[in-house]
């Protein structure tokens, strides 16, 4: 990051235009991408703090380990496929192709919806087997963490829906390249978050 290098500048010594005729930008990427970068850091902090709380709470005596249903492996696979579909769409649009971009992009979002439905089914199964939000803190954390993760996915699906509508109404994929790229990045991020969550939730 070139801004870090600049921290040693002595601005009182140099006059004139620094950096040629270009305006100043710390990163050579679109503003939306920089903003998403910051948002991902914020989301990482949110999930990390939940994780830390989880581990601290786990040490206390009323904690009773939870057996996670096997269906979570299936859900994980669906979310993985969702990420793959987004990546394929992104690759195509990156090469300037427009064939199948919409289909892949649409599939990515629908698979993510499938993941959320799958998560809800697991919630239902847990309820059926008598695992409620209270009193076991392990269950509280299970519902809380999966819920927060799903909320993040839903936020992403909002952007996905907006972009899909534009694609459906005939916009050229290359004009929506940035949106597709950012969705892909966000989906990969949420996949990684889910894998970490899955690991720590299983490890009670």
């Amino acid at each position, binding site marked *: 990051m070139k801004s870090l290098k*600049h*921290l040693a500048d002595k601005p009182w010594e140099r006059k004139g235009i620094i950096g040629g005729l270009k*305006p100043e930008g710390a990163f050579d990427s679109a503003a939306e991408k*920089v903003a998403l970068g910051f948002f991902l850091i914020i989301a990482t902090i949110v999930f990390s703090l939940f994780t830390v709380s989880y581990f601290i709470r786990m040490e206390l005596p009323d904690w009773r380990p939870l057996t996670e249903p096997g269906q979570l492996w299936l859900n994980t696979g669906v979310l993985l496929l969702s990420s793959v579909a987004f990546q394929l769409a992104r690759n195509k649009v990156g090469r300037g192709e427009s064939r199948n971009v919409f289909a892949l992009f649409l599939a990515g979002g629908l698979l993510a919806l499938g993941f959320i439905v799958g998560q809800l089914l697991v919630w239902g199964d847990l309820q059926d087997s008598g695992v409620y939000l209270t009193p076991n*803190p392990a269950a509280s954390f299970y519902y809380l963490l999966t819920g927060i993760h799903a909320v993040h996915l839903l936020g992403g699906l909002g952007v996905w829906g907006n972009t899909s509508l534009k694609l459906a109404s005939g916009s050229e994929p290359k004009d929506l390249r940035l949106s597709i790229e950012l969705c892909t990045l966000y989906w990969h991020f949420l996949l990684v978050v889910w894998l970490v969550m899955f690991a720590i939730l299983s490890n009670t």
Partner: protein
Amino acid sequence: MAYVPLADQELELHHPHSWVTKYVWSQDHKVIAIQYGGTAIAVGLVALVLSLLMRMQLGFPETFDLIDPNSYYQSVTMHGMIMVIYLLTALFLGGFGNYLIPLMCGARDMVFPFMNMLSYWVYLVSVIILLASFFVGGGPTGAGWTLYPPQTSMAGTPGHDMGIVLMLLSLAVFIVAFTMGGLNYVVTVLQYRCRGLTMMRLPLAVWGIFVATVLGLFAFPALLVAAIMMLFDTLLGTSFFMPAVIESGTALDYDGGSPILFQHLFWFFGHPEVYIVALPAFGLVSDVLSTHARKNIFGYRMMVWAIIAIGLLSFIVWAHHMYVSGMHPYFGFFFATTTLIIAVPTALKVYNWVLTLWEGDIRMNAPMYFAIGFIFTFIHGGLTGLFLGNVVIDLPLSDTYFVVAHFHMVMGVSPILVLFAALYHWFPKMSGRMYHEGMAKLHFWCTFLGTYAIYLPMHYLGIHGVPRRYYALGTTEFMVPATQDANTAITIAALFVGISQLLFFINVFWSLRNGEKADPNPWGANTLEWQTPDTPPIHGNWGDKLPTVYRWAYDYSVPGAHEDFIPQNTPESVEPTVDEEHFDPDQDQSKADL
């Protein structure tokens, strides 16, 4: 797609067509700034009134029947929360951040104007939710602004049912609003600077606001996480924070939660929050001091590094708020050490402000009064921080008026003085009119001397062991009889300061109508916002052409220059340079002596 720097891209400004889109649903950063500022000040007045109610109770117990013990606790809580978050954070970042960042960066607006507008309206919703808690059954929460469980949700605490829920909801909504605004401020500073404006040529005001916003973006999540889990505990009966607890003889359904976990989360946000308020103040005051001292800021690079260092350190000191929570002594040792280390960059900044004044051609305008006043109150509050940062000294002083005096001095009075300095300093640009100088100076003396009369005696009360958060002190052996006299005097001073703030509002409203028309650059300042073609700047800020920056923001009193300031957008060639061969330093010195 080749990368095109933002300032080179055609910006589609949202052009307002009606009064409503121009002043209500506005996407212009300057209008949003004023909306943020107005809302923050309005809700701040509510908090001011609450503090006066508390002071009436403490100064004249059993004389006025204004508040009962429950509403005293509610006032304490709401006063603290409103002042720290809904006034100071919102006014510094939402208000000044919005107004100054695009102007000082030579941009036409924020990067995401729509999101910026949304940020204000969501903030307004959070304020409405907060104020709504005054009108629900049980009233607002009285748990103290730290909202420590388990007492927040226990029947003994006022507002334990609806009040706390609305408070947590309001905080969560505020954090959403702040995140939308904050992403804007950060990305605008990083990506939207005009030609020639490197990061190290930014005015310190932008540096302060920028780093504070990054702190906010990274610290508020801790509060959000804590608020979500506490909402679960309160509404859904989980036991994240709530331990097994007995309430009036009945065991509640909670079991095994960790109140200390909440304290860690809260202060992991809470300490950076202090610097979210302080860093913009540091930045703004640096620019005010330098401009009115007609001298470059002393040690610009060190000032920038100090801001960054303070920002980083602020994340590893949080548990110094928890020395009495029963932590491991080594923990206390660690946090005391990091806390005291923060004093180094902070002291460095204070030295640099004083050295900026040294031999300056000081113009004693109202903003300068407030800025110099800030140096006093900040040194004062900073020094008492050194006492409280040490575990052994903190233990006896904890929860006494010494703490109240310390944090009001360092993050109440000091940032407020900077806010007034900044409001008077930028008022001519924002309104196109000059304020009334005499009234502003009177406002300064009332506020400055008055706040000293409030907080100086509180230190002594604290050393005597007078506890904070008490509705009535009663008669206790260890408290000297003069305690009540001091409390009465403090209350009189507080009423005086509270009422004297009217001077500010009278000044603003009078000046908006009758003030002298302001020169575009009345202070002879270098930064870009004073170089706009229109005053106040119109939507889009810069007319046809964006400015180009050729120098840093602090070329004041450059030897040999025609004027004692050279704006940032003055090209090198225009600057009348001194012919070095004929430059006689002695002669120049004699000129300076005159």
